[in-house]
């Protein structure tokens, strides 16, 4: 500190002892020296001092010095030293972090100073262009701080900086050239800068890729020793991931540019790996490479790209490399898990790759198929949870659109094949299905259900599977056993798993439905569950799934069991559960957050095992059949109602026509009103958005105001009179302009609020009117019904109808 002061003294000239100047005063003097000195030397010294103060007196330096610093950047650009000081200073004042020195100063500000200064700096887009131009200066004192300043700006205001760089020609080129830097600090910082810059901006990602980013990055990775390299390798891989994620155009480019071919060398494991082990950095690097592979074959990508990349991955022996890691010993669990996920996505829906994978053997004694070994860990409670999830996902990927694979699994369970080793895929799954670990039950049930998707032949084959129960007892079929087990297990997770299996099995399969209905108690179980009223903790999922299974029993019923014919089951639902309740329970599933989570992507994603309840393919099945079931039940009801226009006499017919006319009229009115409500809602929406915007501007202005006030507070010497007067005329006029703006904005805001209230009231009126019309409509319908007319149902009057039906019975 003492050194500091003496340094300052030499810059400022010695001040009278005992009369220490305040920080604000020092800064003020320095700033004026920078702007008035004619000697470069002097300006340079002052800038050096400003830099030294820019952490501790960040607010003062930023508030008073921003303009001067920009001026120096423009006028003194030929002197690398002074430019370096300026850039460093700007870096400090725009930084997001709070400096220790700053806290000493005890200014408790609730605005983020760095962000505010960033915003001020970015107001003029030329400033960014200026910084970009400094990237071209080779001198280390300029180039490095320029990179860091860009990074600082991007991290506070990514969107703004992205937009500016996108429209400045060659902007990206200048950044890309930094990747060729031989001074590592600069190069490494440039990688980080580009990573921040390409976040969630597809256009930026594409330009960076166009500018040969992949070549540059692979070069760096290679130079740094690939996965054995340091954190810069990880950073390069993260940047690549940024460029590829959800960017089909770039993935296509990555594939066409033969960059996938550069990956296999990264998977080469040194022969002495077991001795040297896996360093944390190596694990991180490795995980990134695995994610890179997953990104290009992600199920979210377009089918064309997935297929092309899968093929290339096989042809370049990447799939082989992945399989080797799967079977190598001493691989950390994280990597193993991610490798399993990667293998899954590389083979998903690709017959050749699936076949390849089916033939991979584990180096066990005797050798077993890798799939078998993996399934064994899936049903092993001691294995880490994420690993078990990965295995299920990989297995699902193996079966996806793979009839041969599905058959392969089911076959191992058929009577002719029993007696074979008890370590076949099917047998592992069956033992998992009836084990004591409910997570294993869930995994196994879901795995088995995937053998049946869109495969009628295997649904039939699996019906033939018999299980030996206790000694001497009759063998029981797999479906029967599942149905019995369902009634007896108390664990929700296990129940849901079994029900999802049954649902896949019974959909589109009258045979399976028949077997299910013949299991004693199964219908009673479903009815009891569906009609139960109270539920706790995800119980509604169970009830919904029971309703779904009931629906499947109606839908795929060949009427071969007298008691449970289509019609009888429909009546059972209507009488015992009630159509309303039934529908409510059924649609409850797809509204559940568990459903939303599972339906999002094929991969099983859960932090904790208790979160595993529903599964992706089941969600798809449910969504596709939900409506069909509700419709089928409706149709069934109408048939049993047996009423038609034929049975009415002429007078009644005339009356009926009148009413129909009336209803049509009212329907139209209703629609019109709905439309106007929609319109009003839209207007409401826009107004709300506008208001939000105004509020935001308002907050911003208030923040700026606070900032300015704070500057005044720490710098009272410049206040002449009144709280808002500042010595600089520019600031002064700024201040009053801002106040003026705030006033205008506040006025606008209150106007918008008034408007909003008016619209809200209108909307309320309309809603009231609509309810009115609705009840009139219902009255008419009721009267029609009393006349014995059947009325076409639509969603809105299901309720009334069933009421009517109940009255009749």
């Amino acid at each position: 500190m003492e050194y500091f002061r003496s340094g300052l003294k030499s810059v400022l000239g010695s001040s009278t002892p005992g009369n220490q100047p305040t920080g604000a005063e020092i800064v003020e003097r320095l700033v004026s020296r920078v702007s008035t000195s004619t000697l470069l030397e002097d300006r340079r010294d002052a800038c050096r001092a400003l830099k030294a103060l820019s952490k501790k007196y960040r607010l003062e330096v930023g508030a008073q010095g921003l303009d001067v610093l920009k001026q120096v950047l423009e006028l003194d650009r030929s002197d690398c030293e002074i430019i370096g000081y300026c850039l460093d200073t700007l870096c400090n004042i725009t930084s997001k972090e709070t400096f220790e020195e700053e806290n000493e100063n005890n200014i408790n500000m609730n605005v983020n100073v760095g962000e505010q200064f960033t915003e001020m700096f970015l107001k003029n887009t030329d400033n960014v262009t200026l910084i970009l131009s400094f990237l071209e200066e080779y001198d280390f004192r300029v180039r490095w701080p320029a990179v860091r300043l860009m990074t600082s700006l991007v991290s506070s205001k990514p969107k703004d900086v992205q937009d500016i760089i996108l429209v400045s020609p060659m902007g990206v080129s200048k950044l890309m050239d930094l990747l060729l830097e031989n001074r590592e600090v600069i190069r490494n910082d440039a990688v980080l800068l580009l990573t921040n810059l390409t976040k969630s901006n597809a256009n930026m990602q594409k330009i960076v890729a166009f500018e040969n980013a992949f070549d540059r990055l692979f070069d760096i990775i290679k130079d740094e020793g690939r996965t054995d390299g340091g954190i810069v390798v990880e950073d390069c891989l993260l940047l690549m991931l940024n460029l590829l994620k959800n960017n089909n155009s770039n993935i296509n480019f990555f594939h066409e540019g033969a960059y996938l071919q550069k990956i296999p060398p990264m998977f080469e494991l040194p022969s002495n790996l077991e001795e040297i082990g896996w360093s944390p950095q190596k694990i991180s690097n490795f995980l990134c490479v695995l994610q890179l592979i997953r990104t290009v074959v992600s199920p979210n990508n377009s089918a064309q790209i997935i297929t092309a990349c899968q093929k290339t991955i096989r042809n370049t022996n990447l799939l082989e490399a992945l399989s080797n890691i799967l079977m190598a010993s001493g691989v950390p669990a994280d990597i193993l898990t991610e490798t399993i996920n990667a293998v899954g996505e590389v083979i998903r829906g690709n017959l050749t790759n699936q076949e390849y994978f089916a033939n991979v053997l584990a180096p066990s004694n005797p050798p077993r198929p890798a799939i078998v070994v993996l399934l064994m860990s899936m049903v092993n409670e001691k294995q880490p949870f994420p690993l078990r999830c990965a295995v299920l996902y990989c297995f699902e990927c193996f079966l996806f659109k793979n009839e041969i694979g599905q058959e392969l699994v089911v076959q191992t369970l058929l009577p002719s094949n029993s007696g074979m080793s008890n370590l076949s895929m099917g047998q592992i799954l069956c033992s998992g299905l009836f084990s004591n670990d409910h997570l294993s039950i869930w995994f196994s049930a879901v795995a088995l259900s995937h053998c049946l998707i869109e495969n009628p032949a295997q649904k039939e084959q699996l019906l033939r599977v018999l299980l030996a129960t206790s000694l001497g007892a009759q063998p029981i079929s797999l479906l029967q056993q599942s149905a019995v087990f369902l009634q007896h297990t108390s664990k929700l997770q296990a129940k849901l798993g079994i029900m999802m299996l049954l649902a896949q099995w019974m959909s589109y399969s009258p045979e399976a439905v028949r077997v299910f209905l013949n299991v004693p108690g199964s219908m009673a179980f479903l009815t009891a569950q569906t009609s139960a009223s109270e539920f706790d903790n995800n119980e509604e999922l169970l009830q919904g799934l029971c309703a779904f299974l009931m629906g499947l029993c109606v839908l795929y019923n060949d009427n071969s069991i007298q008691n449970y014919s289509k019609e009888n089951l429909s009546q059972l639902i209507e009488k015992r559960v009630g159509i309303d309740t039934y529908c409510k329970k059924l649609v409850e599933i797809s509204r559940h957050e568990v459903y939303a989570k599972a339906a999002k992507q094929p991969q099983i994603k859960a932090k904790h095992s208790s979160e595993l309840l529903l599964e992706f393919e089941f969600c798809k099945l449910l969504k596709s059949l939900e409506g069909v079931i509700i419709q089928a039940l409706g149709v069934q009801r109408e048939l049993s109602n047996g009423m038609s226009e034929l049975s009415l006499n002429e007078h009644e017919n005339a009356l009926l026509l009148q009413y129909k006319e009336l209803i049509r009229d009212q329907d139209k009115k209703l629609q019109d009103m709905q439309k106007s409500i929609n319109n009003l809602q839209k207007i409401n929406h826009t107004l709300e958005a506008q208001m939000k915007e105004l509020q935001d501007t308002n907050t911003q202005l208030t923040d700026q105001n606070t900032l300015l006030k704070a500057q005044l507070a720490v710098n009272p010497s410049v206040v002449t009179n009144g709280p808002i007067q500042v010595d600089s005329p520019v600031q002064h006029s700024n201040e009053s302009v801002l106040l003026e703006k705030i006033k205008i904005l506040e006025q606008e805001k209150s106007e918008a609020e008034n408007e909003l209230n008016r619209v809200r009231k209108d909307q309320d009126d309309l809603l009231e009117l609509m309810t009115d019309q609705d009840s009139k409509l219902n009255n008419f319908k009721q009267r029609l019904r009393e006349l014995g007319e059947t009325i076409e149902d639509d969603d809105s009057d299901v309720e009334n109808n069933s009421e009517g039906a109940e009255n009749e019975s």
Partner: protein
Amino acid sequence: MSYAYLFKYIIIGDTGVGKSCLLLQFTDKRFQPVHDLTIGVEFGARMITIDSKQIKLQIWDTAGQEAFRSITRSYYRGAAGALLVYDITRRETFNHLTTWLDDARQHSNSNMVIMLIGNKSDLESRREVKKEEGEAFAREHGLVFMETSAKTAANVEEAFINTAKEIYEKIQEGVFDINNEANGIKIGPQHSPTNPSLPGSGSSGGSQGSGCC
């Protein structure tokens, strides 16, 4: 899979003139009847053969809408070839050519080969720009010219391939600095950069496969 050269192209021109359709016809041999507005840029690639050499074309199809103009500019510098497209059924797209050309010339490297394309030649009945006008414009500005139809695929192959031939010839003549990737040209992985003109031996190589025009 491996190639002797890799050329980077861009396709530019007003919105709706058929840039994306030309690319799709060239890479996938399909036609897309609905206008699917390009947002930013889209990438496509294909291998062609010139002078019995494999050449990989990497093509960036840009958005014609005004709002994307500045983004498009980022792609000029790194491209070896550009297809500048107008729609023969809409005169205004022809009228805008000078703006496009100025933009391209200003931001690209001076050796970039520009191919002028009058697209939608299948819509003869709705033609607003005569073929001769296109030819005249091309002659005046030193461009190669062709009329194409992305719908019937007429001249589509030729447009892309002839552009490549021009670039190839320029390489043979030593105009392009092939070791500077910023020119939009790369030499294939196993081809030595020191003697690029070895097998074709000079100018005869370029003329060999160019019988069609």
